[in-house]
């Protein structure tokens, strides 16, 4: 690597206080976004026959994208590219301003490039999404508490199921890599920031613009398709479907940019001495997860683009009368859809693996096996998608091969278990709040994993598909495992992100309410599903009444537990005990910097040099 270019330039630097950058923020973004949206809506509407569904769809889709574009212009996202275009790159002073230098709380409402600010923005965003999605879950369960319930109409119920699904999927995809991948990960690898700070801000704010778009689905008649949005139903659905597909397209852009940024950061910006076998396991997991998302999500985006074209300009990708096929949608959706499960799962597991050695004070048992487990899961996940299509009638002769590849995922998953159990073996765990989640994960993932094997088995799936059994299975893997990992990460890194300790008593109460309630909720659902209760149906036969009532009781326990956790987070953030620099005695680099973490994370003359792995507890440093 060469040193600096010593050619001196004498370009005058404009005063940042008079620069346009200083005047733009979330408010200007919203104003311009709304102006763009309304302007587009009324301009397009005036020239269209709005009694035609295609025209309505066209106007709404363009309006939603223009909101997003307007917001991004209004918040200043395109200043950098525009300045690049005209050959006037941002000055260091302007870059410092964008990084939020000395701007206090205002920087959280600006196009701020500091990775720590983006991490907090993601954290608040994720908690909001989980709150909204969780509220919808409680409405679903309340409606299912007893047969014949009329809390919501069947149409509203369908929308609740679909919007709960997509809200939670979005939240879960970013739940660990968003807050911790942005705030903690760069410090963990000894970097000063993410590889592309402006794109980092872009990924968050683009995602932010998707939230009102998704919410607008409620006011446009909802989505009747569930989160999978199978075609041709999604092509024929009402205007709310436009909100769904615009959300996915916007989210896919955000994910691609974020995934590229995290991967580039880890590959190119690790501290001196941090060879690949010394990278913290959370960083490895997060990187494998986002690297998997980079090629997977564009196919999801493509399926939505095709749905949008079918709905607006009269193409026929999914219309059999026009030479299209619903199977095409299923392929494109599930080619992304199954890797997406691991995009969610792997970072959560990696958080737990990061925590485990710290609280057991033992080295991670077989770092290599952990990486092989993650890589094996990620690699195999690209070859299993058609197990979601066993019952669709698509090429039955392929059912066998896809059953085999799916069941093979048990092998790398077994490695993950081996590493965690091996680390626990003969250890004397320090039973703090983050550590509890490790045990919860082992239990939940065991149930989620084993029930998944039944579903991957063609004869068993013939009976179980489309039932509550499936719903219970994927909640065990996504919520019981990935979300449990993310909550553990919150408890573990809360002191570094906020400077305060998370209220431990409230944390314990929340943990037990959530985990016990979770078992009651989803074990009850397994029973109902095994007996044949179909999912995505607002009402059910009396024979399922006991199981559903038990599930709903469990759901209320889970909901109460999360409210307690939310209180704990908000209260501790404001009034919690001041945290020491390294409350857990951990060895990774993020615990070597003070709170508040300086803008460049490490002083110029004290950049970290890594001389051993980070899990050398109870052994001599190599």
């Amino acid at each position, binding site marked *: 690597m060469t040193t600096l*270019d*010593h050619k001196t330039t004498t370009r005058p*630097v404009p005063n940042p206080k008079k620069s346009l950058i200083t005047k733009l923020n979330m408010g200007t973004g919203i104003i311009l976004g709304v102006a763009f949206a309304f302007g587009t809506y009324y301009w397009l509407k005036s020239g269209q026959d709005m009694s035609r569904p295609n025209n309505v769809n066209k106007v709404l889709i363009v309006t939603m994208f223009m909101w997003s574009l307007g917001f991004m212009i209004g918040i200043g996202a395109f200043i950098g590219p525009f300045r*690049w275009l005209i050959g006037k790159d941002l000055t260091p002073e302007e870059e410092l301003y964008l990084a939020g230098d000395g701007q206090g709380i205002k920087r959280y409402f600006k196009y701020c490039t500091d990775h720590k600010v983006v991490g907090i923005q993601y954290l608040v965003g994720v908690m909001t999404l989980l709150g909204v999605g969780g509220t919808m879950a409680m409405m679903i369960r309340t409606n299912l508490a007893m047969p014949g319930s009329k809390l919501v109409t069947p149409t509203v119920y369908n929308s609740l199921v679909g919007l709960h699904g997509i809200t939670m999927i979005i939240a879960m995809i970013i739940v660990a890599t968003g807050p911790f991948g942005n705030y903690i990960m760069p410090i963990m690898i000894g970097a000063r920031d993410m590889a592309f700070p402006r794109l980092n801000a872009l990924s968050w704010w683009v995602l932010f613009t998707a939230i009102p778009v998704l919410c607008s689905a409620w006011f446009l008649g909802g989505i009747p398709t569930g989160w999978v949005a199978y075609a041709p139903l999604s092509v024929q659905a009402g205007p709310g479907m436009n909100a769904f597909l615009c959300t996915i397209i916007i989210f896919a852009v955000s994910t691609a940019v974020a995934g590229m940024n995290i991967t580039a950061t880890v590959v190119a910006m690790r501290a001196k001495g941090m060879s690949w076998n010394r990278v913290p396991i959370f960083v490895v997991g997060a990187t494998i997860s986002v690297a998997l998302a980079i090629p997977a999500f564009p196919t999801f985006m*493509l399926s939505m683009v095709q749905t949008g074209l079918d709905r607006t300009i*009269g*193409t*026929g990708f999914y219309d059999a009368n026009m030479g299209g*096929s619903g199977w095409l949608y299923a392929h494109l959706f599930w080619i992304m859809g199954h890797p997406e499960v691991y995009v969610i799962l792997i970072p959560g597991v990696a958080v737990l693996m990061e925590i485990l050695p710290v609280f057991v004070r033992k080295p991670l048992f077989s770092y290599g096996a952990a990486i092989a487990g993650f890589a094996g899961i990620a690699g195999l996940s690209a070859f299993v998608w058609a197990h979601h299509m066993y019952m669709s009638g698509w090429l039955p002769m392929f059912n066998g091969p896809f059953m085999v590849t799916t069941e093979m995922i048990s092998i790398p998953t077994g490695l993950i278990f081996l590493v965690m159990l091996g680390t626990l073996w003969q250890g004397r765990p320090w039973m703090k709040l983050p550590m509890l989640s490790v045990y919860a994960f082992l239990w939940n993932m065991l149930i989620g994993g084993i029930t998944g094997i039944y579903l991957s088995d063609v004869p068993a799936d013939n009976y179980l598909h489309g039932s509550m059994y499936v719903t219970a299975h994927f909640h065990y893997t996504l919520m019981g495992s990935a979300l449990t990992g993310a909550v553990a990460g919150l408890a573990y890194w809360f002191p570094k992100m906020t400077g305060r300790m998370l209220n431990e008593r409230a944390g314990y109460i929340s943990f037990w309410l959530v985990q016990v309630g979770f078992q009651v909720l989803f074990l009850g659902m397994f029973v109902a599903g095994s007996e044949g209760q179909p999912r995505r149906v607002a009402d059910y036969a009396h024979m399922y009444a006991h199981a559903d009532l038990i599930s709903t009781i469990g759901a209320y326990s889970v909901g109460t537990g999360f409210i307690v956790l939310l209180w704990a987070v908000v209260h501790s953030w404001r009034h919690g005990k001041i945290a020491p620099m390294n409350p857990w005695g951990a060895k990774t680099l993020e615990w070597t910097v003070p709170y508040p973490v300086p803008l460049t994370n490490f002083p110029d003359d004290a950049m970290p040099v890594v001389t051993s792995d980070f899990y050398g507890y109870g052994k001599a440093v190599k």
Partner: protein
Amino acid sequence: MATHTDSQFHVHHDSPEQIGRRERLGVRLLIVADGAFVFGMIFSYFYLKNLNSNNGWIPVKGHTFTAISGWWAIAPFVVVAIIHRLAVRNRSIFGLVSILAVLILAAGMYYQWHQMATMKFMHTNDAGDNVFEGAYASNWVLLAGANMFHYILTLFIALGLAIRHKRAHVNATLETWRQRTAGSWFTWTAISGIALALTTTFIR
């Protein structure tokens, strides 16, 4: 008014070389994402072509584009990728080549737009809605749209390189890296263009 030197080059104190390498990696990762999208389109094309459900692949009246028309639409990508590569090696012609690249891409964009404006397999039905005749038509318009997206993005990059060339206040080392990184994108647009043009040669 203040001045700055290259020792203050980047807010996080990175050298132009570091930034250049990083940007090249980032662009290549974005190419992977775009590649997945392009692969998905090609998959859709051949999937529906071979499925030919309800004999609905070819438009009812048989209107299709000729196989060669797809190649004309992407030829500018190939030309720009080649001349850009030459210009990076021979810096004395970079200014001229970058302007030429902008003109070629603008012409290609116009040609792609013209094709889309004159496609014969779209008509308006009695109810007033647009209808694309057959799955070939649906796929063709998607592929053309993808080419158009590539044209817009590539034209932006080419225009930026042309404007920035020889500007005094642009860091020379970093600019060289960025020109090479742009080359990665230009090469990718040529490859994806060829793949899409090759796809549309399989009509029936």
